[in-house]
């Protein structure tokens, strides 16, 4: 079974609004998967279906090829967008409680928590009350609570919202480690640029519908416009741009479009031959943000909320 998660025609309706409208996608085991879309697109509704917080009205959800059942929550680690802790509980006690609710024994929970607390260098917090911790500290505790039971599927809903850069990097690194150890990770966010470099596969959701699904590189390659950027020091050789399509030229950065990809290299050669000093050369691939907006327009849909609104 190659896919850890498979959704087929999942529908969820709240009163009058269709929060999830026939969404299908599959997620290969051991991958980092991005679920992207603006606020209110239906991402959280989908996650709540996968985590068995709510039930789908229609459609099928398979985890490791099995329809969702009561044992699955123990194999899922979920960090909700709105996350909190019991303020009066001590950190160690709290983590043990959450781990035991995920089916760990007292001892296994303790071992795993100590391991993670050492990793995050917060072992001395064990007896501190949650309310004594700063917000950044609480986020570390929440992350530990999400992964403490070694789930094979980890779902992070807007994991970086409200996270300081240090913690964000820490968590990115740990996500990588967990993936290497065999976990599959879903990132759900509306900040597409944040996950561009982490995710291998993505699904784009808008208004409850699946807009686009696939590998990040393939999607970008499919939608690239043969744009290339050259960084050149000094003046351009005269007349070299004749008959070429220039998109942008300023401050020694030259952006060109070619009908054939290989023409970019020919142009590079002609630049070098003409005596220009080329410091850099790169292909410009569209960002996921651009792809999302373009795809939504092509499909004749509207976006409910502007992208990139920091939450």
């Amino acid at each position: 079974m190659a896919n850890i998660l498979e959704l087929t025609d999942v529908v969820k309706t709240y009163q009058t609004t269709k929060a999830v409208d026939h969404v299908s996608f599959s997620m290969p085991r051991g991958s980092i998967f991005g679920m992207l879309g603006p606020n209110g697109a239906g991402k959280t509704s989908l996650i709540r279906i996968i985590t068995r917080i709510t039930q789908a009205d229609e459609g099928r959800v398979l985890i490791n090829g099995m329809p969702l059942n009561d044992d699955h929550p123990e194999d899922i680690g979920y960090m909700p967008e709105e996350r909190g802790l019991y303020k009066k509980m001590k950190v160690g006690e709290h983590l043990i409680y959450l781990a035991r609710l995920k089916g760990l024994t007292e001892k296994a929970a303790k071992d795993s928590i100590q391991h993670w607390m050492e990793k995050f260098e917060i072992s001395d917090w064990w007896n501190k009350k949650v309310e004594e911790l700063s917000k950044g500290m609480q986020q570390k505790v929440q992350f530990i609570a999400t992964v403490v039971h070694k789930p094979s599927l980890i779902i992070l809903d807007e994991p970086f919202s409200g996270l300081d850069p240090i913690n964000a990097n820490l968590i990115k690194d740990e996500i990588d480690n967990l993936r290497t150890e065999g976990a599959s990770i879903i990132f759900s966010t509306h900040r597409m640029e944040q996950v561009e470099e982490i995710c291998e596969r993505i699904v784009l959701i808008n208004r409850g519908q699946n807009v686009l699904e696939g590998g990040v590189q393939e999607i970008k390659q499919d939608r690239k416009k043969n744009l290339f950027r050259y960084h050149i020091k000094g003046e351009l050789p005269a007349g070299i741009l004749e008959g070429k399509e220039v998109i942008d030229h300023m401050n020694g950065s030259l952006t060109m479009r070619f009908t054939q990809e290989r023409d970019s290299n020919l142009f590079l050669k002609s630049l070098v031959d003409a005596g220009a000093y080329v410091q850099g050369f790169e292909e410009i691939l569209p960002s996921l943000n651009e792809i999302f907006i373009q795809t939504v327009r092509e499909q004749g849909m509207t976006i409910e909320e502007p992208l990139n609104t920091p939450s």
Partner: protein
Amino acid sequence: MNKLWLIIKREYLSRVQKKSFILTTLLTPLAFLVFFIFVGFIMSYESDEANKIAIVDQDNMLKKAIKDDGNTFFSFPNAPLDTLKAQVARGEYNGVLVIPPLSDIQTKDHKLFYYSDDQLSLDVENAIESAVSSRIRDHKIATMNLDPQVVESLKTSVEIDPEPIEEDGEDISSMRTAIGAGLGFIMGIMMYMGVFIYGMMIMRSVMEEKTNRIVEVMISSIKPFQLMMGKIIGVGAVGMTQFLVWIILIPMVSVLVNLVFGFEPQQMQSPGMGAPQMDPDDMQGMVMMAMQELGSIDWWVIVPLFLLFFICGYFLYASLFAAVGSAVGDDIGESQSLTLPISIPVLIAFYIMMVSVRTPHSTLAVWASIFPLFSPIVMPARLAFDVPWWQIALSLVLLIGTVIFFVWLSGRIYRIGILMYGKKVTLKELGKWMFYKG
């Protein structure tokens, strides 16, 4: 099941280990005692000023003998009224009491005159009136040449002793009725307090979880219904613990206070209020009888039944409070308007309970103790009065059915409510949530 147990444990321990819980549990019995001692002190408080009263007994009816009462001292100086008045003005006496001769030995109203610049306090006035009136009575008995013993024998104390019609029926004394009423009242009060204190505790805790945003983490591991039940059972256990501690502590503390202060409960009834002083022999007899009656009550029937009604009533109302808590989040004002519909039946039941201990077999009491929203409070109040078995059985069957229905209903509201943010909730809205799909 294992996870439900974990939740119950956390809900229980997190409360029981709190300093505030330990303090309230230990200090409440003390506070009660201090309160009662204080009230007793206030009630028995008499004017602490000494009252010196000169009596001018124009017909010498009092024979120059009258008992001093508390801080009031009487004297019979041989001086004319005007001299005495001057002495009052100088402060040697607080006042002069003039007892005019009786116009007729058979007169029933007699006016005394009191000369003073100070107002007589109600207590002192009562004391003087009763002292003088009993002396005048003696005077009349003597003047009319009556035998005091004959006069005494005119008094008859009447008491009704209920007897059963059938011969094998239980002979119930009126003492039994009083004890039953007291017992019923205590059980009713406990139910009423239990429902409110612990229901509110559950509601606040659900609101906190929702505001805290811990709830979504929780229900990704367990079902909302488990979380709600765990909370209800855990808090219920907290309540049981508290009651148990109080049941043990209150008698202990009162015994201790008795030993230390030599404090007798009778003293709390103020003698100055004109309460009839009880003959010590009578008192002892009463206590003996009360003990006997207490022993004859079927504790093995009443206590388990009370617990059963208590648990049912608790689940019924606690689940409703949980549902309200889940619906409102952090809005205290909104929670108040939504708890009102829950409080009303509890309050009505409480008032019916108060009436039911006096008339335990009235139509109102019988039907209120069968109606499931009232029965947890009203039925325990009637248990000491030999309630027919069919009534208890019918009441319990209806109650348990209602409990199951309400817990289910609250679970439906709860599971939607805890994930619903930023929406003003109305009762109509709550009604709709019951029919939402998972």
